[in-house]
């Protein structure tokens, strides 16, 4: 006998009642994503401002002062120390007193006039984010002064690691599309929304099934004519609803509280979110077929979250990864959703550009739900 709507609605009503009645779990489901969002948005910043800097000014003319002023007013560098020589600046980095050193050679103004001025930037190589931010900030300031920049990454132990980039040509000009002010949050938030949603969906889907099996309720329900697919949908549909609401809340906070631009179609975003939540719930169901206890379900979900943080392209670019980590990332629905989310929110593009990832998510949701339904037994063993 096929699926019966009456049984399905009875199951949905039961699960919804239980979900809403369990206030503690409900609070947890709603509060945790918000905490995660605020933590990520406020604490995780990829750009490092206010690097403590040692300044070695061997020129002491109007141009060198102007250059130092430009560095400081960019807010990337703080002049915390005046050093007498390059060696002294390097010692200060070794000692951890400063993160960067700027060495301006003698006759700076005259060199600029002639067009072959050169400034040395020393950066603490043990802190890669500082190196990146400091280098890119210094080079754009250097450009405006039409001077070349020699940057050295300095390891804490005192050995110079060589030039990260010898002398950038002065003529380079970069135009940043979509995110002109290079705000990290514009890059991070569309991905963080997906991370939070996937984590929640996987854990809750696994828990809601394993809990029934652990307590024994499953036995009493299995002995009714309920079909496995009805049982699965009955549990997943209420979860889908509540997670959709949470998605809307997080997205709303991202746009209205954190001021992240939403350039694309909200409708498209809604449908793709639905698909993404469905895929993630399916992944959670697969977890539930492996986990015997709620504790195990939680632990496996944590592992999936860890993989997602590292391999789905939230922060670390996926095309820089070796093949195997990339392949593992391909197994996570988040990998596809991040591209969709950034595409719609930041770039404002539509399905014409995103159809491939959207299609993969459709396939993912269908396959995972079918596998889960097939491995969901109508018996206890």
């Amino acid at each position, binding site marked *: 006998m096929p699926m019966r709507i009456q049984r399905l609605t*009875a199951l949905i009503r039961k699960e919804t009642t239980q979900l809403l009645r369990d206030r503690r779990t409900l609070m947890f489901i709603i509060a945790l994503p918000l905490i995660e969002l605020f933590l990520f948005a406020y604490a995780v910043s990829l750009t490092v401002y206010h690097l403590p800097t040692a300044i070695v000014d061997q020129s002491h003319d109007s141009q060198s002062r102007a250059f130092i002023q430009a560095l400081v007013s960019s807010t990337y560098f703080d002049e915390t120390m005046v050093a007498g020589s390059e060696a002294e600046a390097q010692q200060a980095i070794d000692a951890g007193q400063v993160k960067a050193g700027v060495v301006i050679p003698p006759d700076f103004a005259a060199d600029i006039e002639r067009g072959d001025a050169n400034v040395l930037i020393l950066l603490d190589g043990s802190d890669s984010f500082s190196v990146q931010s400091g280098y890119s900030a210094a080079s754009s300031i250097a450009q405006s002064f039409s001077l070349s920049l020699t940057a050295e990454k300095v390891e804490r132990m005192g050995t110079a690691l060589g030039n990260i980039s010898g002398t950038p040509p002065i003529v380079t000009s970069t135009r940043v599309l979509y995110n002109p002010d290079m705000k990290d949050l514009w890059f991070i938030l569309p991905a963080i929304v997906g991370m939070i949603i996937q984590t929640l969906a996987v854990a809750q889907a696994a828990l809601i099934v394993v809990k029934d099996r652990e307590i024994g309720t499953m036995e009493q329900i299995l*002995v009714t*004519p309920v079909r496995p697919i009805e049982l699965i949908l009955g549990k997943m549909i209420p979860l889908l609803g509540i997670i959709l609401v949470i998605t809307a809340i997080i997205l709303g906070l991202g746009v209205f509280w954190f001021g992240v631009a939403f350039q694309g179609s909200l409708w498209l975003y809604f449908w793709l979110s639905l698909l993404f939540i469905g895929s993630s719930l399916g992944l959670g169901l697969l977890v539930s077929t492996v986990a015997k206890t709620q504790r195990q379900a939680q632990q496996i979900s944590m592992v999936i979250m860890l993989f997602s943080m590292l391999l789905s392209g939230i922060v670390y670019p996926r095309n820089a990864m070796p093949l195997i980590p990339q392949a593992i990332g391909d197994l996570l629905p988040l990998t596809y959703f991040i591209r969709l989310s950034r595409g719609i929110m930041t770039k404002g593009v539509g399905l014409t550009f995103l159809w491939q990832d959207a299609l993969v998510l459709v396939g993912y949701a269908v396959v995972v739900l079918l596998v889960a339904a097939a491995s969901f037994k109508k018996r206890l063993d």
Partner: protein
Amino acid sequence: MEIAIFATDLVKTFRTRKGPLNAVDGLSLEVGRGETYGLLGPDGAGKTTTTRVILGLLTRTAGKSSILGFDSMHDTYAIRERVGYIAQQFVLPADLTVIENMRFFASVQGMSPEMQEKRIPELLSFAGLSDFTRRLAGQLSGGMKKKLALACSLIHEPQVVMLDEPTLGVDPVSRREFWNLLGNLRAEKGVTIFVCTPYMDEAERCNRVGLIYSGRLIASDSPAAIKRQVKGHLLELRPGRFVPAQAAVTGLPGVLEVQTYGDKLHLFVDNVAQRRPQIAAALAAQDISHDEIREVEVRMEEAYISLVHRREQAGPEERKAA
């Protein structure tokens, strides 16, 4: 007799770390329509596994089993539409109220809202739960939980009800009430009832009883007939010094079996008039005081232990024969 529940040479093997374990090991039974059948045995004898396999909740390793002619494995859903079941632990959703539980199971069984309107109040008053409809199932007392489970399992008017230790953890008064409900069910609706229980006194309420031991049925008959299977008459006495007394009477001529019962000894003897003075003499010889040696009626408990003893003694040869 029309057969409601049927099993023959039923085997259920679990894979364990120590190798395969036969929880049910060649069990055969038949329960007629309208009967109240008690599957009696200690914990670990295989009662729950047998019930679950017959219901199709566990896969069958070998043998045949069916309910109302529907095969346990192949016609699983046909069985689930016609059979009520109460699992051993309380496993109704604890965070739903009494009425929500009833409505859920009614809907899942495909009952129309109009039928529910009529049937649910009937069942609630039958189970004595009419005043507790808004209480969460998890907050009911042990006895009321079982009554709710019974009411939920009867919602679709099943012809067969299978109950796995329904009175486990229930106080004596509630136990009696529960059994009265089962009695009414049989009398009024002719429902076939299959009960697993470790309580020998509950067996007396069944038409027929199957004694299960190590996954096999070692006897299946009416309670009276099972008690008649035990050879000899039963004598009871309370000795002053228990352990020496047990040693003194064991092996006396005519003493077929010695069982302990609290601070009393139960002796099966071939002839009461002849053996009573001999036992008294044997105890007196060892200077063991005791109260009067009385003949008592054999109860299910003594019968069960006696049949298990007999089985264990016959065990090795029988296994060779097989």
